[in-house]
């Protein structure tokens, strides 16, 4: 029903026209979920925007044909396009927070949309809105419809967004990363709902996502995109199970499997970053090893509790407490990687902040190696743990100061901890360290914005390692990165850990990634430990029901796919 032929979209710029996508062919049949997968910058969203006619200015369609049944979407006048947009094509966005108007009730938004597109009375529209909400699985819809968006949870809100998209009974829904902002459990529900709608209402979906697990789970057909070109297209099992194009093969290799642990991710040889790797990194390696005379350091946490004071609601009543961490005890064995998994709000990041001394715990003791680790308020600026414990943050775009050069950023730990006193030596060491993490030496005089997310994360890792730490906390270090880059960064972390005998606390929400990295595991939920133990045991025979649920809900590929890793 939807046919795209030779589509090309260009964006004029000061440097001439930039081609966002070209030669994209795509066909979607009714009731089909068509996955559009690719890494950031592949042009996935641009395809969606072109179909719905909402390419952000000043972009324009340079070439190609988009037809919906018999309608040529490119030949429409703006008014006709507007009508088609509402009636026959709908869109679901990534963030349910921002795609609903926070000042209107769900009822008002649904009725408004229904009445815009069909001439019905408010009563009828109301009835249809309630039916829709019931259809998409909101219980007690007649009551809930009076609520404002913020009164719904994230998953429920995304359901409301889907209901809005269904208002006009569309033939095609474009879903742009519809589950990326959601936790696995909620993601599962939303994906089930999409599948159900496709089957029952015969709606076609263009599902745009970077998550191959999601595609593997619900898409009938898939198109793989890279750099604005469609590389491979076909049945999902065919494309992902027996990929033909080298890029798809590489992509599948980079996806961490949930059902087994692989020693290293296999990276394609023509990898643009790792290819420049030479042997000069040995200087940094030798320097780092000089300091590593002591055996690896473990970490013990006992009865750690973190309570936040709630907002005061009354002048006389004490505000309620919110318990982010509830009586947490665990030990990280020296020289191993401890995986810490949990959904958002489980207290993962709070734990990292307590350990690094950014938050003062309400109770509990921490021990780093043999020495007690004072909590935030008692930990002085010169405490040895400031150097021994380093952290790699989730967002490589905010963890590096955008106004400092890479050289300055890397030299900082060296002079701050008095490790190297000569500026020239610091620079040489920083250069060598860049090489060790697979970055070119000329990066030294550049600013962070000149690098991609993966490269920045390498720099962040280099900064942490240059402090000669014994203990590294990685807080979701790869969740902002594309899979192929994620594979590179994970490989790098594994290498560094093995070489320098680091102890790592690896925080993630992604069970597959955790399995690849961790020796031991902690499963955290609502600030409590649900399960802890050796990683492989936990993944093969989970004890806690919650761990089992997490494993079941994580979108995974059949183990026969991507066999090249085995």
């Amino acid at each position: 029903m939807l046919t795209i032929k030779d589509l090309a979209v260009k964006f004029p710029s000061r440097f001439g026209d930039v081609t966002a996508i070209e030669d994209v062919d795509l066909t979607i049949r009714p009731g089909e979920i068509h996955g559009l997968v690719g890494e950031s910058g592949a042009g996935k969203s641009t395809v969606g925007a072109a179909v719905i006619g909402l390419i952000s200015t000043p972009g324009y369609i340079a070439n190609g044909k988009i037809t919906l049944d018999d309608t040529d979407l490119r030949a429409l006048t703006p008014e006709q396009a507007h009508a088609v947009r509402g009636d026959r094509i709908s869109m679901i966005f990534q963030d349910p927070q921002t795609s609903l108007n926070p000042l209107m009730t769900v009822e008002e938004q649904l009725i408004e949309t229904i009445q815009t597109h069909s001439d019905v009375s408010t009563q009828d529209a109301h009835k249809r809105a309630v039916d829709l909400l019931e259809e998409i699985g909101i219980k007690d819809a007649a009551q809930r419809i009076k609520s404002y968006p913020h009164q719904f949870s994230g998953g429920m809100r995304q359901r409301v967004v889907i209901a809005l998209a269904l208002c006009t009974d569309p033939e095609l829904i474009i879903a742009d990363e519809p589950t990326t902002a959601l936790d696995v459990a909620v993601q599962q529900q939303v994906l089930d709902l999409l599948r159900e709608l496709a089957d029952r209402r015969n709606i076609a979906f263009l599902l745009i996502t970077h998550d191959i697990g999601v595609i593997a789970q619900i898409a009938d057909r898939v198109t793989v995109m890279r750099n604005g070109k469609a590389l491979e297209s076909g049945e999902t099992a065919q494309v992902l199970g027996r990929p033909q194009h080298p890029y798809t093969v590489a992509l599948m290799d980079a996806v961490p499997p949930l059902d087994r642990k692989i020693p290293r991710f296999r990276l394609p040889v023509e990898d643009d970053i790792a290819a420049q790797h030479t042997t000069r990194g040995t200087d940094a390696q030798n320097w780092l090893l000089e300091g590593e005379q002591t055996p690896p350091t473990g970490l013990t946490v006992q009865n750690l509790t973190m309570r936040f004071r709630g907002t005061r609601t009354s002048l006389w009543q004490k505000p309620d407490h919110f318990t982010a961490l509830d009586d947490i005890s665990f030990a990280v064995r020296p020289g191993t990687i401890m995986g810490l998994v949990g959904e958002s709000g489980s207290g993962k990041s709070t734990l990292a902040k307590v350990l690094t001394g950014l938050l003062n715990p309400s109770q509990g003791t921490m021990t780093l190696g043999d020495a007690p680790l004072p909590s935030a308020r008692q930990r002085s600026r010169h405490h040895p743990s400031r150097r021994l414990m380093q952290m790699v943050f989730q967002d490589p775009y905010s963890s590096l100061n955008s106004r400092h050069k890479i050289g300055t950023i890397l030299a900082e730990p060296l002079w701050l901890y008095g490790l190297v006193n000569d500026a020239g030596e610091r620079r040489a060491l920083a250069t060598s360290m860049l090489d060790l993490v697979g970055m070119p030496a000329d990066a030294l005089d550049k600013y962070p914005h000149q690098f991609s997310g993966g490269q920045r994360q390498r720099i962040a890792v280099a900064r942490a390692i240059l402090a000669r730490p014994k203990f590294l906390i990685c807080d979701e270090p790869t969740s902002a990165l594309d899979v192929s880059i994620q594979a590179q960064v994970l490989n790098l972390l594994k290498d560094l850990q093995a070489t320098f005998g680091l102890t790592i606390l690896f925080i993630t929400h992604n069970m597959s990634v955790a399995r690849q990295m961790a020796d031991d595991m902690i499963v955290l939920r609502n600030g409590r430990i649900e399960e802890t133990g050796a990683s492989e045991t936990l993944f093969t025979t989970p004890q806690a029901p919650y761990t089992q649920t997490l494993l079941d809900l994580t979108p995974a590929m059949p183990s026969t796919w991507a066999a090249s890793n085995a």
Partner: protein
Amino acid sequence: MIALLKRNEALWLFIHSPAAIIAALVALAIILGAAFAPWIALVDPYDLSSFSLFDGLLPPVWEDGANPKYLLGTDDQGRDMISSILYGARLSLFIGLAAMTIATVLGVSLGLAAGYYGGRFDAIVMRIADVQLALPAILTALLIDGIARGLLPADIQQELRVWVLTLAIALSLWVNFARTARASTLVQMNKDYVQAAVMMGQRPIRIMFVHIFPNILGPLLVIMTVDLASAILLEATLSFLGIGLPADSPSLGTLIRIGMQFLLSGEWWILWIPTLFLVALVVSINVLGDFLRDVFNPRLR
């Protein structure tokens, strides 16, 4: 050159904004004229021997009875209007720049520290700022001026006039900087690079000025230009009211006050020319401020 233009976004935006170019030219001409006043002005309005009463009240050249020597006419003392204005702008700009600099240093330091430390220090600084915002800037300036007049002995009062005025204006403008710096600092505090610096155990002073400060510079530059215009206006207002600079060292405001006496007696240029000059200066600085705001805030483009 073209390669440079393409790389530098601010420059590219600048050459595509006629308003910004005109404003920059006007401001530049005024600033250069003021800076080099002693070399380009016809007479020195402070030196009584350099002008003559006989040249008094001459109109601009395009009116009848003008002396072509005095392009924009003379005032009642026989001073060349252009010379008076250039010297006046020199004083106005000096006071404006000095006041803005003091306000920036004071406001940014307090705002940064308030945002960084939070808690009680933040509360105290911001409540003081709130109280001050409740008073009009002119009232604050009047208050400080009054206190200085009361405290300083009469003989050094005249000498310190310019500095008292500068301080009065600075103290009524620091709040803008403190608030902006604090708000921007709070945003930066949540960024991981600041958290990383805190975690590593860096000195708070270093975190504030080496890490956070360069990242909040954008909005501060905008406020600096806008407040430079405010400072010049405030000085003009105070001088106009007669509590600023005295008539023997006239700033633009003083010139306007003197000109007021001739408003209804036909010698319109004595009032209007300094006034238009002040308007041109303030408007062009404000337009530049607007332009800077657009550069630093891509969403407004």
